[in-house]
């Protein structure tokens, strides 16, 4: 699939540093001679991070409703400790792109992502966030995939994905974080 950047997006992206491929943020630095203690601490930190993914309240369209449903009583992602939805990116860990990203929104999304404190993760929920989905062809304003704007960790196809699908994605993401995988490793590993 050819990757088309929109004009506005392109100028925006070239004006700032392209952070598409960067180091895995929030890495625990190597301390020489750490040895076994450090790995244990690493494990602890990864465990904590994976179990406390606070999402940013970011929902642009229809998928946002299913995201709300996951927050709702029947599916209840608070069981995993994810219910602390923060309205400000400074305190959020994971940004769930629930909905279409259009050209006008792309800089906003990028800014929100940039403003998040490390470590941060991104979940693209729904066809729109993955690729523009229903609005891939013959539209002039839709970004064809949120990963043109910010790096994405997990993709959930569906339009909208079921609440369980989002939960499945969160669990797999959790799993990867627990194993201390970087974004690149995740991409290759599955």
């Amino acid at each position, binding site marked *: 699939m*050819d990757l*088309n*950047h*929109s*004009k*506005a997006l*392109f100028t925006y992206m070239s004006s700032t540093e392209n952070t598409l491929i960067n180091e895995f943020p929030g890495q625990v630095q190597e301390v020489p001679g750490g040895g076994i203690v450090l790995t244990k601490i690493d494990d602890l930190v990864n465990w904590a991070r994976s179990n406390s993914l606070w999402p940013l309240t970011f929902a642009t369209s229809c998928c946002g409703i299913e995201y709300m449903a996951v927050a709702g009583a029947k599916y209840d992602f608070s069981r995993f400790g994810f219910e602390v939805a923060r309205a400000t990116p400074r305190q959020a860990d994971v940004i769930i792109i629930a909905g279409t990203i259009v*050209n*006008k929104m792309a800089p906003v999304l990028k800014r929100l992502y940039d403003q998040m404190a490390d470590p941060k993760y991104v979940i693209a929920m729904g066809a729109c966030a993955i690729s523009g989905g229903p609005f*891939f*062809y*013959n*539209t*002039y*304003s*839709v970004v*064809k995939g949120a990963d043109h704007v910010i790096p994405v960790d997990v993709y959930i196809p569906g339009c909208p994905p079921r609440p369980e699908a989002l939960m499945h994605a969160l669990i797999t993401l959790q799993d990867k974080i627990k194993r201390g995988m970087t974004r690149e490793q995740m991409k290759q590993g599955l």
Partner: protein
Amino acid sequence: MSNEEIKLVISELLPTASFEEAGEWLNIGIEAADWKDAAQKLRNCAAAPFNFLFCLTCVDWKTHFTMVYHLRSTTTLDNIVVKVKLDRTNPEVMTVCDIWRGAELFEREVYDLFGVIFLEHPDLRRLLLTDDWVGYPLRKDYEDPINMIKL
């Protein structure tokens, strides 16, 4: 009122208007220059004040634009469609947002997507697209090789 009756009323009100039966509602064609005046009259029409502008849009006919105004009288529940033909190279029409306040956003949208200039509009800026967008996407000849992937 039936369409015939509305036709009578309106032809009295606007002698220059032309009529056309397309679709279920009465279609009225008005010259762009007369439009503001006609709008005022329609709004204050005694028999059926068309006080409710429920739809405002534009159609690109490749040779010309047609502004389409859907009006309703909330007292008699009659609907009419007013069509104003515009020049395609220089589409300009008077704004009606002082008559129907809801028209303000509608007109901005039409300006944004078709490039129709609404004279005396208080705040004619792009509404839906970014301010630096080039072109008017709902025109039939709009080409955008970067954003639009043709199926």
